[in-house]
């Protein structure tokens, strides 16, 4: 089949599986199930090919067989013993590999997490409450100052809201409630963005059906 003809057929196939998945909106049905299972199979096949070509071949086989770095047999061995989980009697052996991976990953994440998430974020919060720049108008200075103050006070209030060692009563309670309102506004923003995201995904598929698939049908039969 020549490429020009192959292309619309693949496009139409993509449109048909899209419709098969949309059919779930009516109810679960064999078409949906078949498309879903085929996709699961394909994604597993894709994963195996990709992992072999991008990880196992260059990092294990090539290093051991071509570069003479036999120490790469250690992670290979650790990887293999993960499969002992399928054999209940010796399943505990897989813990060695898990311990290696989890220990290494936990260790590497401690300094970076503290640096990137805690220290740099805290540093960005510690800033002057007054934000005055002679080049700006007085109203711009006023709003900038309100924002700077909000940034510091709001972050503290939200942290207090999550701090349960102090009872949220009186002044602390009111301060924590202010934090709670900020959190609600933040969740509202997240919700607005989530709506936007989900709608975008639907737009992408409808765009595909109404434009690409229709064009391909036209090319194939027209």
């Amino acid at each position, binding site marked *: 089949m020549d490429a020009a003809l192959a292309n619309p057929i693949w496009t139409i196939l993509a449109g048909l599986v899209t419709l098969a998945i949309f059919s779930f909106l009516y109810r679960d049905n064999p078409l949906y199930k078949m498309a879903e299972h085929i996709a699961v199979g394909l994604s597993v096949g894709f994963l195996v090919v990709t992992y072999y070509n991008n990880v196992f071949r260059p990092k294990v086989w090539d290093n051991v067989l071509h570069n003479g770095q036999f120490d790469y047999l250690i992670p290979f061995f650790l990887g293999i013993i993960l499969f002992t989980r399928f054999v209940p009697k010796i399943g505990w052996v897989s813990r060695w590999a898990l311990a290696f991976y989890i220990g290494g990953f936990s260790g590497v994440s401690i300094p970076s997490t503290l640096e*990137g998430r805690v220290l740099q974020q805290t540093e960005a919060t510690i800033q002057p409450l007054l934000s005055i720049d002679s080049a700006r108008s007085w109203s711009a200075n006023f709003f900038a100052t309100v924002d700077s103050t909000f940034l510091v006070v709001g972050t503290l209030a939200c942290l207090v809201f999550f701090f349960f060692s102090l009872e949220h009563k009186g002044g602390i309670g009111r301060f924590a409630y202010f934090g709670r309102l900020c959190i609600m506004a933040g969740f509202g923003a997240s919700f607005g*963005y989530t709506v*936007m995201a989900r*709608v975008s995904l639907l737009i992408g598929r409808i*765009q595909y059906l109404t434009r690409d698939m229709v064009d391909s049908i036209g090319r194939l039969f027209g």
Partner: protein
Amino acid sequence: MQFQEILRLLQNIDRRIIYSVLFVAVTFPFYIDWPPVRIEVSREVEDAYNVIESIPPHSNPLMISFDYDPASAAELTPMAEAVLHHCFSRGIRVLAISLQYSGLGAGIASDVVPRIAAEYGRKQNVDWAFLGFQPNAVIAMLQMGEDFKKTFPIDYYGTPVNEIPLMEPIQNYDQIPAVITLASTAVGEYWAVYPGSRYGLKVLAGLTAVYTADIQPFYQSGQISGILGGLKGAAEYEKRIDKIGDGTAGMRSQKTVHYMIILFIVIGNIAYLLSRRRG
């Protein structure tokens, strides 16, 4: 029909009616070019554009990390295309990778990058390269900070990285002017937390809208230098580079659906408040 009955019905509109209205709201704008949309380029997008624009042509490449899977392709592929159009039209080199754990991001990159490169006659391994995929994003990010060639010994197509001309001057992040992560998960944040803080890598983030609100603290702290948020972010970038694409095309539908959902929320709330007032 009693007023109370109407209020009850309004609060419990059948889901099939909502589905149908949603379907119509998404589909019709593609045929009738309505409603009009206005796209303003936000400061976050402008910042991202400026970082990429400042990379000299035919020098060290912008790194693009395809950290998303097909589920988010509708939002992030228009973004990838817009950034690639920008780069290739200006002769900025591109180094693509994927750190999405299932490997499916590599499938998207291997389709999108060569396709846009071909539009501008850009040569593989000279103007662009696709190094492929590594499963654990954090470990790969940290490895690249020391040695790219150890992290990706061969590219996606099996070529040894030592034989790729584009990779000759590249040892680690010191030779990378910036990275843009196109991410549908927390991987976008990891770029700022790990290589950003440890190696001082300049990070731009193209994110699904879901993550856009969450990433703001990193933008304010300067750990992320620019953000493209969701399909709207793609549309803004398309406007900035003056090349209309799928991002802009989808904004009409985005608008009708947003107002539709708001209308349903308002109807539901009016009915709820009235029914509560009547006891």
